């Protein structure tokens, strides 16, 4: 378990990282970067798997099952559209 100030430190450092990553990005990449970050929060899939993995009874299992479907959709869909968009960008010097 990650607790107390350790958790707070992780949170703070990760927040700064996110801010710095997008801070100086040219506007042409706003869409791919947004859909890329949309893909990255698809990591919720591992949490949904764990939740389904220890769910008990019908309702918990059903909600966990739906959670994994949604999370897998987020991760896979996020990846596919980001890759498609990035593939289109080219320079006239290429």
């Amino acid at each position, binding site marked *: 378990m990650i607790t107390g100030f350790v958790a707070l430190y992780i949170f703070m450092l990760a927040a700064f990282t996110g801010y710095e990553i997008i801070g100086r990005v040219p506007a042409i990449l706003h869409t791919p970067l947004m859909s890329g970050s949309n893909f990255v929060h698809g990591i919720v899939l591992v949490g949904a798997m764990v939740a389904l993995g220890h769910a008990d009874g019908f309702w918990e299992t059903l909600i966990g099952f739906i959670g994994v479907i949604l999370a897998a959709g987020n991760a896979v*869909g*996020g990846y596919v559209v980001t890759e498609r968009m990035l593939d289109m960008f080219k320079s006239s010097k290429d």
Partner: protein
Amino acid sequence: MSFWEFTVDASYFIAAVLFIVGLKRMGSPRTAKSGIKWAGIGMVLATVVTLWHPAMEAGFFRYVLMLLAIGIGGAGAWYTGKKVEMTAMPQMVALYNGMGGGAAAAIALVEMYSGSAFHHGATVLTLAVVGALIGGVSFSGSLIAWAKLEGKMKKTIRLPGQQMINGGVALLTVILGIWIIASSGSAPVLVTIFFLLSLAFGVLLTNPIGGADMPVVISMYNAFTGLAVAFEGFVLGNAAMIIAGTVVGAAGTLLTLLMANGMNRSISNVLFAGFGVDDGAEAEGPEGEMKSVEAFDAAASFAYSDSLIIVPGYGLAVAQAQHKLWEFVQMLQKEHDVDVKFAIHPVAGRMPGHMNVLLAEAGVPYDLIFDLEEINAEFPNADAALVIGANDVVNPAARTDESSPIYGMPILDVDKARECYVVKRGKGTGFSGVQNALFFGDNTRMVFGDAKQVCTDLANGLKQI
């Protein structure tokens, strides 16, 4: 620490590093393509090792369910993601994002129903509750955004006293959330009502927001889902979720602010102001005669220009005119030696950077595309400007008319070009409901018609010269 505990934790660490490096690489056009692949490797690694996560209870049936769910969600998203048109990309991103929010909320629900969220103290419980709320709002709100952009919800319904109702539902949700935290015992009924209220709040919040404000809304919900994932990561003690979710939450918040700045409005103004609503008052605006010309005349004028700056807007996306436009531009470049640049307003389209994606799809190299700050100084020296399907973002009233609702919004100074041509479907006003002074300018010529048809006519016009 057992072997699998170590392997899972180590893999999550590597995945978190890959996500951050991947996102960083996505920040520059040269490295962007490899960036998404790095992040993708991290995701596959994290997902596969999770099958051996120590918190998993054994059971064949459980694993079958898990793989089945991944198969259903993954295959559905793969298929839709491959098929979706670039024009429809904003709603697709909104949909995938909403699914992530829904998944975060589902985690919170399972943890609260099973009671395990109640065993680790008030902090963890609070994070579970807040994560469920944000995730639920992001889920239902993104679905509404998707439905609106997809054209499944034609009318923007504004209830009388919308703000009161929204405020009431928000207050009720928060009170119930505090109650759950204070009761510190598993209460399935309370949790269910709380979750349904958070869904209702997402619907109520998003419903009154119009299409042109969607870039702000979509990137806001992206940040929401990120935060919800981070909070549920705390609940599960999952560092990969905490780091990835927080990074996305912070990046998404910044992007949301950039979008709102692009319209010179605050986030709360976007969410609550009901911008662009006809409140009965007759919109006062510039009057006069619009000077309309045929596409052929416009083509002739562009052919004899040295420099042309094109401003695309959502109308270009709706008409799917990007390919025809690029065909025309290539003729101008090759046969008439015109220096053509594209100028893109930060909030053009329905998603941050939407226009860039559409132009890239048509094959326009990114070094011909410029941001507002980069290009605005060039308009006074440009022989011609061509506005296609954009309206409010080129309205000079934003600079000059203090009484205008869009006063102060940064605009592209197309009116400063020697000649300005505007391609427009009809004579109506833009999203803001404001009449555009540009259309009545001395050096402005209107070309009425569907953007795709006009671009075709422009190309045909060039061939006759």
